[in-house]
């Protein structure tokens, strides 16, 4: 349990993120923890050296709405989630199609725990950036 933590759901996530933006918070990063049956996705925001965290519990096959329309800087880290955990992130501002950090020959969704069969992330054949 982190300090300043607020649980959110997929429906309230975008509203809460937008609220942080209006309060003058700076986007820091997104952390994903694979709990085995669900993902814990933590959104970290910072204001005056104090972190504010949103915790989203996501089912293994659920889509994740992108916050890149609110904080553009999140686009890189959301692509990373898509690559490493195979989480389908919707409405990304720049979509690398699962080829942000990984390439052909790399394992698919390597940080996802193996107990559940991994979902196929969307892939383009040539690995090109769309």
């Amino acid at each position, binding site marked *: *349990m*982190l300090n300043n933590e607020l649980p959110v759901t997929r429906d309230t996530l975008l509203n809460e993120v937008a609220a942080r933006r209006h309060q003058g918070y*700076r*986007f*820091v*990063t997104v*952390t*994903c*923890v*694979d709990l085995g049956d669900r993902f814990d996705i*933590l959104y*970290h925001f910072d204001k005056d*050296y104090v*972190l504010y*965290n949103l915790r989203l519990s996501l089912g293994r096959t659920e889509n994740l709405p992108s916050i890149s329309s609110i*904080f*553009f*800087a999140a*686009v*890189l*880290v959301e692509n990373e989630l898509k690559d*490493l955990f195979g989480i389908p992130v919707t409405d990304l501002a*720049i979509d690398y199609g699962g*080829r*942000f*950090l*990984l*390439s052909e020959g790399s394992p698919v969704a*390597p*940080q996802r725990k193996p107990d559940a069969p991994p979902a196929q992330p969307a892939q383009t054949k040539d690995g090109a*950036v769309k």
Partner: protein
Amino acid sequence: MSKRTIIPFGPQHPVLPEPIQLRLVMEEERVVEALPAVGYIHRGLEKLVEKKDYNQCVFLAERVCGICSFLHSVTYCQGLEEIMSVTIPDRARFLRLIWGEVHRVHSHLLWLGLLADSFGFENVFMHAWRCREMVLDLLERTAGHRVMLGVSCVGGVRRDISDEGLADILRTVDALQKEFDEFVPVVLNDYSIKQRTVGVGKLTKEQAAELGAVGPVARASGIARDFRETGYAAYGEVGFKIVTETAGDCYARMKVRCGEMYECLNMVRRAVAAMPAGAINVPVKGNPTGEVVARLEQPRGEVIYYLKGNGAKNLERMRIRTPTFANLAPLLAMLPGCELADVPVIVLSIDPCISCTER
């Protein structure tokens, strides 16, 4: 509308010490849009925490990046100390500060050399790296290695600096100050350097705040934000001054880093003077349980470690957000509108560390 061309910049490029590819959409000589293609150094070391125990991972964290190596391991150790409620001895906090600040000087000198190299100013490159060797020799004398210090451990530090060692540090710091006094004003007032950097790669304060810029990039745009202000390690006792600029261009970033080099030397002096005696580490028992976000100011900006332990000797999850990762989005905002020849200068002005970024 004139014809658009896409120029791939990197991964193997004479001025880039590290592989990153930027796809530059050009309209004649002007950059319209830039897209980074990373992944050339992605190793996947976050996953390794599941195979190595938390003490071994100190060395793993150190090898996230070969430039700010010591500060990575300190962040990791601070995080674990917070989870396990360990209070480290005062002397260890001061030693961490001294090594950390000496590291910052070496990192900034390295960056100054590479920036000068990117616009073809070989003299500055050679001279900055010559001064940097003084710092590396100092690190080797005090910590045992030039780059990977390997002195941090959970619960303190693994090596003490003797009184002769401290005197040696002061001598080196004085020698460095003399060198800086000589060449930093020359670098900052040079006509050709100003031609290449003033007004190039502008980032406004609003953009910097919006895109989450950290470290010298944010401070050069007028955001007085430095995590050392919170007083972790011994920064609270030693105190320091934030260096800021408002112009937000490459020249301002250069000025910020040059100012920080002086500030680092002053902090090392004050820390050596106030150095407490006593133990350098405390034994740590048990395994970490719980989660924590550890933060620290590196030469390139604020680094974030998310650590989660579940009572086993291996951590469950380690996630690293490095400063360059945060500064990539601001870089993409700086590039459009600049000329092709300025691209290397702008890229190097954020002090990119790609191996940090991709881990």
